[in-house]
C-alpha cells in the first residue's frame, strides 16, 4: 500500500514539478558526459602526448565534479525541502489517520528512491547519447580525425554518476526523514496557514543599507578596475569580499528601498495591481535575499567563466602559429652553453637524418643590463605574471643580427637590416597587447641608453617567432654582431654567452620525425644523469595547447552550465512554491473582479522581476569583471570579446529564459487549476 501511495505521489509531483525533474535529469546527463571524456578518445586519432593530456583532463574533471556535485547536492536537498514543506499538511493527514512516523518516512523514502531512479535513468540515458556528440567536439579541439564512429559507453563515468547521485539522494532521504520525525502534528497542519514573518524594516535602515551596498559595490568596482586581476593577492580577495558583501546588502535592502520610493509616486503605485506586485516581490525578496544573492553571484561566475573561457580558447587558437616557427628546438640550461649538436653526435644521433638544415647559435647576456633597464615596471609585471617568470632583475638576452638573419633565412623570410647603432626588440609571443606596449614605450623616445651609450630603437617589435621558445619569456634584443662579439667570435667586454640553441625543421613526415627524435633522445634522460639541454617539438606544443584549450573549454562549459542551471532552478522552484503558497491571494483578486489578463500580467511581472533582478546585478558585475579579464587575456593574445559575450548571452537567454518561461507557465497553470478545484 505504501508503494502505491508513493507511486501516486510521485506521479503527481512529476506533473507539478516537472521542471525540477528535468533539471535533475539534465544535471545527471551533464555529469555523465563530462566524466566520460577519456572513454570518448577511442573514436579519435591522437598522439601519445595528447593521450596524456586527456588523462590529466579526466583527472581535473574528477576534481571539478566533486565541486559540481556539492552544488547540485545543495540544489537537490533544498528543492526537496521546498517539496516537503508544500506537503506538510498531507503528511499531517497520514499521521492523523494513525500512520506511524516511520511508515510516513518510508513513503518518503520510496518516493525519493523513485524520483532518484527516474531522473538517474533518464539523465544517464540522455548522457550516453550526448557524450557521442561531445566526442566530435573533442576531436575538433585536438584537431584530430575521427577514426570512425563507435558507440561509446563509459562504465567508469556511469558508476561514478550512480555513486555521486546515490549519495546525494541518501542525504535527501535522511533530510526528509528528519523533517518528519522532528515535526509535531500541529506544526504539520498549521504549516500552510503560517505566514512567513513579515520582515518589517525601518525605512531609514533600508535606505542606509541600500546606500551602503552601492558604496561597497562602487568601491569594489573601482578598485578592481584600477588593480586588475593579474595578481591573486589579498587586495583582490578584499575586492571580491567587498563585492560579495555589497551584493548581499543590495538584495537585503533593494526591495524595501524601491517600495518606499515607489510609494511616493502614488499615480504609479496605486495603478492596476502594481502595489500588489511590489508587495509580493518585497516579501519574497525579504525572505529569500540570501539565496537571490547566491544566484546573482553564480550567474556572475557563469557569465565570467563562459565568456572568458571561450575567449581564452580563441586566444590560444592564434597563439600556436605565432609561438614557434620551427618543428624542433633544443636549448641548454644551467649557464654552460656547450654545443648541442656535438653532444647529439656523441650520442650517435645524426641530425642530418632528421633535417637538411639545422642551425645552432648562442645568446649573450650582460649582468649590467637587466630587464628593468629596458622595460617599464608594469610591462615587467605583465611579463612576470603571464609567464610566471621569476626575477624581474634577471638579465635580458642579446642575439646577434647574423644569427637572427640565418634563422629568418631558414624560414624563407625577408632579412632584417639594422642601421649602425640601432637595436631591435624581439618578442614573438601571442600577446599583441604587450608587443604594442613595448613598441609604444620605445617609439616615443626612439632612443635607448645601454651602458652609457645611446642606441636608436628599430620601430617595430620583431615577432617572427624564430627565436627559440625555450628562451625565457621570448623577450630578446637583436643587435648588430659587433656589439656582442669581435671578429674572432670572442664575446665583447661585459658580455658572456648564456645559452645554446639548436633549431630546425624536420624533413619528410614531420610529426613522425619529431616523435622519432624524441624517442631516440629520451633514454638519455635518467635518474642519474641527463643532457644539459631540453627538446621541444611542435608535437609537444600542439598537444599542450590543445590540452589547455580542452581543459579551459570543458571546465568552463561544465561549471558554467551547472551554475546557470542551478541558479535558474533555484529561482524557479522558489517562485513556483511561492505561487502555490499564495494562490489564495490570487483567488481573492479574481473574486473581487481582477480578470485573467490582469492576473496573468501580475504573475508575469512578478516572475520577470524575480528572474531579472539577480541577472541584472550579475550583468553589471560582469561588465566590470570582463573589462578586467579582457585586459588580462589580451596580454595572452587577442580576444574577440564581443563574440564570446554574444555566445554566452545566447546560452543564458536559452537556459535562463527557458526556466523563466516554464516557471511563468507553471505558475499560471497552478492558479487556473486551483480556481477549477476551488
Amino acid at each position, binding site marked *: 500500500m505504501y508503494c502505491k501511495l508513493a507511486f501516486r505521489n510521485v506521479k503527481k509531483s512529476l506533473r507539478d514539478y516537472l521542471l525540477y525533474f528535468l533539471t535533475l535529469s539534465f544535471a545527471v546527463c551533464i555529469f555523465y558526459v563530462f566524466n566520460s571524456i577519456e572513454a570518448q578518445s577511442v573514436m579519435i586519432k591522437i598522439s601519445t602526448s595528447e593521450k596524456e593530456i586527456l588523462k590529466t583532463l579526466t583527472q581535473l574533471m574528477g576534481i571539478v565534479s566533486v565541486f559540481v556535485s556539492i552544488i547540485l547536492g545543495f540544489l537537490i536537498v533544498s528543492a526537496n525541502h521546498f517539496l516537503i514543506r508544500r506537503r506538510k499538511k498531507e503528511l499531517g493527514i497520514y499521521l492523523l489517520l494513525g500512520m506511524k512516523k516511520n511508515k510516513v518516512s518510508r513513503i518518503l523514502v520510496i518516493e525519493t528512491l523513485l524520483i532518484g531512479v527516474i531522473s538517474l535513468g533518464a539523465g544517464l540515458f540522455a548522457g550516453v547519447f550526448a557524450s557521442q556528440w561531445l566526442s566530435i567536439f573533442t576531436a575538433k579541439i585536438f584537431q584530430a580525425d575521427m577514426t570512425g564512429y563507435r558507440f561509446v559507453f563509459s562504465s567508469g563515468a556511469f558508476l561514478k554518476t550512480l555513486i555521486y547521485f546515490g549519495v546525494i539522494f541518501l542525504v535527501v532521504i535522511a533530510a526528509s526523514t528528519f523533517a518528519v520525525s522532528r515535526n509535531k502534528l500541529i506544526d504539520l497542519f498549521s504549516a500552510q496557514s503560517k505566514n512567513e514573518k*513579515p520582515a518589517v524594516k525601518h525605512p531609514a535602515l533600508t535606505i542606509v543599507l541600500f546606500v551602503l551596498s552601492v558604496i561597497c559595490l562602487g568601491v569594489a568596482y573601482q578598485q578592481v578596475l584600477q588593480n586588475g586581476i593579474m595578481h591573486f593577492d589579498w587586495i583582490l580577495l578584499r575586492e571580491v569580499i567587498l563585492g560579495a558583501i555589497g551584493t548581499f546588502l543590495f538584495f537585503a535592502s533593494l526591495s524595501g528601498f524601491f517600495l518606499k520610493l515607489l510609494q511616493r509616486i502614488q499615480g504609479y503605485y496605486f495603478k492596476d495591481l502594481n*502595489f500588489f506586485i511590489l508587495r509580493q516581490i518585497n516579501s519574497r525578496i525579504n525572505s529569500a535575499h540570501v539565496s537571490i544573492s547566491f544566484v546573482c553571484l553564480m550567474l556572475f561566475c557563469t557569465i565570467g567563466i563562459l565568456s572568458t573561457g571561450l575567449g581564452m580558447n580563441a586566444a590560444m587558437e592564434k597563439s600556436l602559429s605565432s609561438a614557434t616557427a620551427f618543428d624542433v628546438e633544443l636549448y641548454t640550461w644551467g649557464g654552460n652553453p656547450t654545443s648541442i649538436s656535438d653532444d647529439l653526435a656523441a650520442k650517435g644521433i645524426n641530425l642530418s637524418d632528421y633535417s637538411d638544415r639545422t642551425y645552432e647559435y648562442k645568446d649573450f647576456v650582460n649582468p649590467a643590463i637587466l630587464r628593468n633597464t629596458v622595460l617599464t615596471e608594469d610591462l615587467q609585471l605583465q611579463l612576470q605574471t603571464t609567464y610566471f617568470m621569476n626575477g624581474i632583475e634577471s638579465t635580458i638576452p642579446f642575439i646577434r643580427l647574423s644569427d637572427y638573419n640565418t634563422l629568418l633565412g631558414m624560414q624563407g623570410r625577408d632579412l632584417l637590416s639594422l642601421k649602425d647603432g640601432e637595436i631591435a626588440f624581439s618578442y614573438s609571443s601571442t600577446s599583441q597587447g604587450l608587443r604594442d606596449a613595448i613598441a609604444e614605450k620605445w617609439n616615443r623616445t626612439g632612443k635607448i641608453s645601454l651602458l652609457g651609450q645611446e642606441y636608436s630603437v628599430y620601430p617595430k617589435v620583431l615577432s617572427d617567432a624564430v627565436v627559440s621558445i625555450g628562451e625565457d619569456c621570448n623577450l630578446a634584443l637583436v643587435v648588430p654582431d659587433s656589439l656582442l662579439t669581435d671578429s674572432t667570435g670572442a664575446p665583447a667586454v661585459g658580455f658572456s654567452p648564456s645559452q645554446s640553441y639548436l633549431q630546425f625543421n624536420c624533413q619528410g613526415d614531420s610529426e613522425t620525425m619529431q616523435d622519432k627524435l624524441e624517442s631516440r633522445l629520451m633514454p638519455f634522460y635518467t635518474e642519474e644523469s641527463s643532457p644539459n639541454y631540453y627538446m621541444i617539438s611542435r608535437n609537444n606544443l600542439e598537444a599542450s595547447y590543445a590540452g589547455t584549450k580542452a581543459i579551459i573549454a570543458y571546465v568552463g562549459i561544465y561549471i558554467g552550465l551547472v551554475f546557470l542551471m542551478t541558479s535558474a532552478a533555484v529561482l524557479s522552484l522558489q517562485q513556483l512554491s511561492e505561487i502555490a503558497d499564495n494562490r489564495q491571494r490570487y483567488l481573492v483578486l479574481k473574486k473581487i*473582479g481582477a*480578470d485573467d489578463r490582469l492576473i496573468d500580467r501580475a504573475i508575469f511581472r512578478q516572475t520577470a522581476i524575480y528572474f531579472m533582478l539577480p541577472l541584472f546585478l550579475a550583468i553589471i558585475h560582469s561588465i566590470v569583471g570582463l573589462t578586467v579579464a579582457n585586459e588580462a587575456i589580451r596580454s595572452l593574445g587577442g580576444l574577440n570579446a564581443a563574440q564570446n559575450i554574444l555566445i554566452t548571452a545566447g546560452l543564458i537567454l536559452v537556459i535562463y529564459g527557458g526556466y523563466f518561461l516554464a516557471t511563468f507557465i507553471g505558475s499560471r497553470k497552478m492558479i487556473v487549476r486551483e480556481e477549477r478545484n476551488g
Partner: protein
Amino acid sequence: MSNMLTVTQVEKYYGNKGNLTKALDGVSFSIQEGEFVGIMGASGSGKTTLLNCISTIDKVTSGQIIIGGKDITELKSRQLSEFRRTKLGFIFQDFNLLDTLTAQENIILPLTISAVNHREAIARTAEVAETLGITDVLAKYPYQMSGGQRQRVAAARAIVSKPAMVLADEPTGALDSKSSRMLLESMEKLNVDLTATILMVTHDAFAASYCKRILFIKDGQLFNELIRGQHPRRDFYSKIIEVISLLGGDVSHVL
C-alpha cells in the same frame, strides 16, 4: 423601488447521470434595492452554492439570475470579471485580506483594478474607512489588527467600489461575539446610511436577526421566508429560532 436581484427557477446539478446531486432545485426569489436579506440553511442546504451562482463564481445549470437588469448567466468570462468588479462587493468568512498589503491597500484594491484615478481612490478609501471606524488602522497590516478590525476592513473593501450589491458569505463565522456584533452593526449602518443592498449567507440566527428579510433554504429548495417588518430585533430572533427548529436538521447545529 426596483428589483436589484431576480432569481428565476435556478437549478444547479453536480455529478453525472448515475450520481446526481441537486444543489439547487428550482429556486426563485427577488431582492429589492436597499434591502438587507439573509439566506439561512443547514450545511449542505445549497446556500453557499446559491451565493456562488449569484456572485458569478459558479455557473447555474438552468434558470436565470438577473442583477441590476442584466442576466449574468449569459455573460462571457471577460464580462463576468468586469461585472464582479463594478457591480458586486464581497465579504468572506475568513476575511481574505491580502496579508502583504496594509488595510488601506486592501481596501483600495477593487478601485485600482477598475482603473479608478488614484486621487479619487484614496479619497474614497478614507471615506469608507471613516464610515466603518477603521481610519486609525489604515496603515497597519492585517496581522497587526484584531479579528473585528480585519472583518471591517474586508467590509470596507466590499463597498468601496459602490457595488450594486454586497454579497457576504458567513461574515461572522470567524469572529467572537463582540466583533460579530460590531461588524453586523456596521453592515446595518451600510444598509441604512449608504442604502447598500446586502445579501448575507449565514447559519447563525443572531447574525441573521440583523437582516430585514430572511430566506430559508433546505435541500436546494426555498423553504420559508421571514420578514422583520417593524418588529424589534429580539422578537425577530425568536422567530428565526422557531423556523430553524422547523428546518429540523439544523437544531443540533444551532444548539
